[in-house]
C-alpha cells in the first residue's frame, strides 16, 4: 500500500470543522453552547439532529483514508458533505487546492465531473442502460463523444475484468459484478479522488473479500486517493492507511491501523479492536525496545514488518532481531516481546 506518511506534501483533501445538523433552524445551533450537548439532548431541546460534529482531517495524495463507524455514526453523511451531495451546515472542504464549500453551482458541477467520483452501497446503476453505457455515464454528462467514451469504458471494464459483460444489463449481473460496474464507472472519469460510500456492505462476505482485493489492486495500479466508508473494522484495517473512527457524529480516534489496535484512544475503540489479532496489525515499531550495546549485529528486519510476518525469523534466531528504518537500526525485538504481543490478543 502507498505510503502512510504525508509529511512535507500538501493534502489533496482537507476537511476543517465540518458540521451537519439536520432539522429546522439548524444554522442557529452552531455557535451556541448547545453544540456541546449530546445528540439526544440536542434533539430534545431544539428538534435538530447533529449527524456530523466538528470533523477535521487531511488526506494526502495516493492515500486510502477510511472512515469507520456503526450505522448512525454520521460517516455516510460526512462523505456526502465532501462534494456537497449534502450541504454541510458549517466547516470548510478543500479538494485539490480548491474550496468546495465556496464553489458556485457550476464550479461544483465541474469538480464532480473531473475531480471526484463516487461508489455507492446500493450501486446506483441505471437499470435502463447497458453495462457499457453505465460505465460511460460520467463521461456522457461531461459531453464526451460517444465513440470516445465507449472506448474508454471498454478499457476500464477490462481493468475490472468485465469486458465480456459490456452489452448486458445491470439486473443480469450478480451483486458483486454490479459493484464492479460501479467501480468501473468511478474509474472511467479518471478522478483525482474516489469516494466509496460503504461499497461492499450489501455484498456477501466472500465476495466482499474479493472486492477488497480488487480495490487494493486497483489502488496499487492507479495510485488513486480514496476516502472509504465502512462499518466493518477488518475491512478498514485491510484497506486504510489512515482510519478515522466515528461515534455519534464525532471522530473519536484518527490514526494508522496499528495506532488504533496498539493504543486505542478510549474504551469505545478498545472494545472495537478487542477481537482483532494484534500480531496481524502491529509492526515491530510497536514492540521494539532500545538496543543494548552488542545487539546491533543481529538479523535485520524492516521496522514496518508486522509481528506475524516477523515470527519465523525471530523464533529461528538466537539473538534479538534488529528493526531497521531506512538502513538505520532503530530498535531490537526479542522473543519475549513477540510472545507478549501475541499473548495480549483477545484481552
Amino acid at each position, binding site marked *: 500500500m502507498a505510503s502512510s506518511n504525508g509529511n512535507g506534501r500538501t493534502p489533496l483533501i482537507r476537511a476543517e470543522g465540518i458540521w451537519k445538523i439536520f432539522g429546522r433552524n439548524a444554522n442557529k445551533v452552531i455557535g451556541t453552547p448547545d453544540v456541546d450537548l449530546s445528540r439526544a439532548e440536542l434533539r430534545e431541546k431544539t428538534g435538530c439532529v447533529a449527524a456530523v460534529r466538528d470533523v477535521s482531517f487531511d488526506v494526502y495524495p495516493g492515500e486510502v483514508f477510511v472512515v469507520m463507524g456503526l450505522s448512525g455514526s454520521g460517516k455516510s453523511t460526512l462523505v456526502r458533505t465532501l462534494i456537497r*451531495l449534502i450541504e454541510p451546515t458549517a466547516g470548510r472542504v478543500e479538494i485539490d487546492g480548491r474550496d468546495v464549500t465556496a464553489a458556485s453551482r457550476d464550479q461544483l458541477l465541474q469538480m464532480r465531473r473531473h475531480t471526484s467520483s463516487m461508489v455507492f452501497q446500493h450501486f446506483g446503476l441505471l437499470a435502463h442502460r447497458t453495462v457499457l453505457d453505465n460505465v460511460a455515464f460520467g463521461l456522457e454528462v461531461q459531453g464526451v463523444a460517444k465513440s470516445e467514451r465507449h472506448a474508454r469504458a471498454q478499457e476500464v471494464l477490462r481493468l475490472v475484468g468485465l469486458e465480456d459483460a459490456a*452489452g448486458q444489463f445491470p439486473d443480469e449481473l450478480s451483486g458483486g459484478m454490479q459493484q464492479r460496474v460501479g467501480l468501473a464507472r468511478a474509474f472511467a472519469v479518471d478522478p483525482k479522488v474516489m469516494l466509496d460510500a460503504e461499497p461492499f456492505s450489501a455484498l456477501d462476505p466472500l465476495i466482499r473479500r474479493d472486492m477488497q482485493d480488487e480495490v487494493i489492486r486497483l489502488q496499487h495500479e492507479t495510485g488513486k486517493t480514496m476516502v472509504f466508508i465502512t462499518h466493518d473494522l477488518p475491512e478498514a484495517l485491510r484497506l486504510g492507511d489512515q482510519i478515522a473512527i466515528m461515534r455519534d457524529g464525532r471522530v473519536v480516534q484518527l490514526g494508522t491501523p496499528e495506532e488504533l489496535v496498539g493504543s486505542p484512544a478510549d474504551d469505545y475503540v478498545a472494545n472495537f479492536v478487542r477481537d482483532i489479532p494484534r500480531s496481524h496489525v502491529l509492526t515491530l515499531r510497536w514492540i521494539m525496545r532500545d538496543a543494548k550495546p552488542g545487539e546491533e549485529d543481529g538479523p535485520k528486519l524492516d521496522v514496518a514488518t508486522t509481528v506475524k510476518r516477523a515470527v519465523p525469523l525471530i523464533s529461528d534466531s538466537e539473538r534479538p532481531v534488529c528493526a531497521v528504518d531506512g538502513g538505520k537500526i532503530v530498535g531490537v525485538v526479542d522473543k519475549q516481546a513477540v510472545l507478549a504481543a501475541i499473548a495480549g490478543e483477545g484481552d
Partner: protein
Amino acid sequence: MAVAEAAQRIPHPLPAPWWRGKSGAAVLVVVAMLIAFLGWRNQGHWPAALTWNSVGPHLDRFQTWLSDNRNVPDPNLAFRAFNGLANFLDHLVAWSTRFFHWLTWAGTVVLGTLLVLRFGGRRAALGVLAAFASFAALGLWEESVETFSLMLAAVSLSLLVGVPLGVLAGRSSRFNRAVTPVLDAMQIIPAFAYLMPVVILFSVGPGAAVVTTMIYAVPPAIRITALGIRGVHPNTVEAATALGSTRWQVLTKVQLPLARRMLLLSVNQTILFALSMVVIAGLIGGQGLGDSVTNGLYTDPAMAIFAGAAIVIMAISLDRATEAMANRTDPAHRHLTADRSRQLRTYTAACAAAVGLTVVLGHVLNAGADWSRWTAQDWLRQYVQRGLDYVQNPSTFLFRDLTNPTGNFIVQHGIQPLRSFFIETPWPVTLIGLVLIAFLLSGLRPALIALVMLFVVGFVGEWTNAMDTFSQVLVATVLTVIVGFVLGVWAAENRYVSRALRPINDVLQTLPQLVYIIPFIYLMPVSGVPGIVASVLYAAPVMIRLVQRGIEGVSPETVEAATAYGATRLQVLLKVKIPLARDAIMLGVNQAIIMVLAVVVIGGLVGSGALGYEVAQGLQRNAFGLGVVASIAILALGITLDRVTQGRVRARTQA
C-alpha cells in the same frame, strides 16, 4: 412479590363495555333523533328565513351577462382570450375528427392496429382490431371516431398539463405538499357537480366536454407521474449527481427513462378517466357515443345499450393496449441491444409504410371516412329489443319474482323510510344529530366541517333534496360495504374466489360511471333503484380490493403465532386478521362512499330524483342557476362524507 407490586402501581382500568364508549353515544344520538322524528314529524322544515333564494337568479344573471359580453362584435381583451381558448378547444376536437376522416376508415384501422402491434404486442393488437370490428358491426363507426377524438383531445391536454406538474411534484416535496390537497378536492367532487359551472363558462359544445374531462383526468396524470419520478431509487439519482449531472441531465437521462413505465401507466389511467367522463360529456355537447347514450336513454333504449357497449369495448381495448405498451417498452426491463433496436426501427418503418399505403389505397378506392357498408345493427336490435321486452314483461319469472320484488324491497325498506326519517325529522334535530355522530366517529374538525357544509346545503335551499340524496347514498353504501366486505374476506381466504373475482373487478373498474346504470334502467325501473344498484357495482370492486389487500397484508408471523396457540381458522379471521385490517377496511368505506355519491347523483338522469335530477334539469332546460345550486349542495355533501369517513382512519392512526 415484585410482580404483584408492579401490578398495583400501574393503574389497570377495565375496558369499558361498548355502550359506555363512543358507539353507545352514537346509538343514543340516533334514538334521540328517532324520538324527535316520531314526536314532531313534519313540524320543522328548513325555514325560509335561513334560505338565500336568490343564488339561482344571481347565477342566471351572471350567465346572461357573460354570454352577452362574450358575443358582442368587439369583446374586450379578457373575453377575447377566453373566446380564443374556447374556440381552440372546440377546434381541437374537430381537427382530430377530420384527421381520422382523412385517414379513411381503412387507414384508421391499420394505423391503430399496427401502432399497438409494434409497441404493445400481438394480443393487444388483436383486441384493438376486434374493437374496430365491433364499432363497425354496431353501426357506430362515426360516433366512435367522434368519441375517440374528444378523448384524444382531452387526454393530450390533460397530459400536457399533468405530466410537467407531476414531474415537479415528483422532484419537489414542497410543491407536492401544496398540490396534494387540491388534487384530493378535485377527486372528491362528483363529476356531475362541475358540469354546470363549466357549461356556464364555456357554453354547451365539445370545448366544455374537453374541460370537464380534463378536470377529472388531470389529477391521476399528476399523481402517477409524481409517483413514477419518486419511485426512481434515490441512490441512482445520487450517483448521477455525484458524477456531475446537471438537474436537467438527471431528469432526462435518469428519472424520466426509469419512470417511463409509470408515465405510460399514467397515460393509461388518464385515458380511462377521460373515457369515463366522455359519456357524461354527451350531456353538454360532447358528440359521439356519449350523445347516443344520453339521448337513447329516453327515446331508443337499444341504441343506448349499443353505444354503452361500444364505450365498454373502447375502454377495455384501450386499457389493455396502453398497459401492454407500458410494460413492453419499459427500458429498465426490455434490455434492448443495438441489433435489436435496428430491427425494431426497420419494423417501425415498415408499419408506417403500411399505414401510408392503406391511406393511399383508401383514397384511390374511395373507401370513405365512415364505415357505411354492412352493419349488424338491425339484426342485433331485434335481439336486444326482444330482451328488453322480456325483462320488462310483468308476467315473466325474471320480472315478477326477481327484479321487481328486489327493487321494491330496496325502495320500501331502504330508501323510503330513510328518506322520510331525514326529511321529516325537524331540521335542527337532523343537523345536530348528524354533526354529533360525525364528532363521535371522527373528532372535532370533521364535525365542524360537517356543520358548516350541512348549513350551506340548507342555506342554498337544497336541504330536502340533499337529505334525499343522502339517504340513497346511505342505502347504497351499506350494500356496498356488505358486498365488498364479504367478497373481500372470502377472496382473501380462498384463492379460487380471488382468481375468479379478479377479471370481473378489472372490467368493472375500467367502465365509465354512467354505463353501469344503463342495464338497470330496464331491469329495475323503480325510482332510485338503478342508481343505487349501479353505484354498488361501481364501488364494490374497490371495497373488495381494499378489504382483500388489508387482510392479506396482515403479517404471516402474527397469523402463525395465533395458529400456534390453537386458534381455529375462524378465530384467526375474527380475532386477528379483521381487527388488524381495520384501517384498510375503513379506507374502503371512505372510497366507497365517495364513489357511491358520484353515481347516485348521475342516477338523477334516470329517475333517482333529488340533487342529480336538478343538475340534469339545469343542463337540459338551460336552468343554469338551479343546476349550479344543486352542484354546490352535491359538493358540500361530498366534502362532508369524505371528511367524516377519513377522520375515522386518521383518528385511529394517530392513536
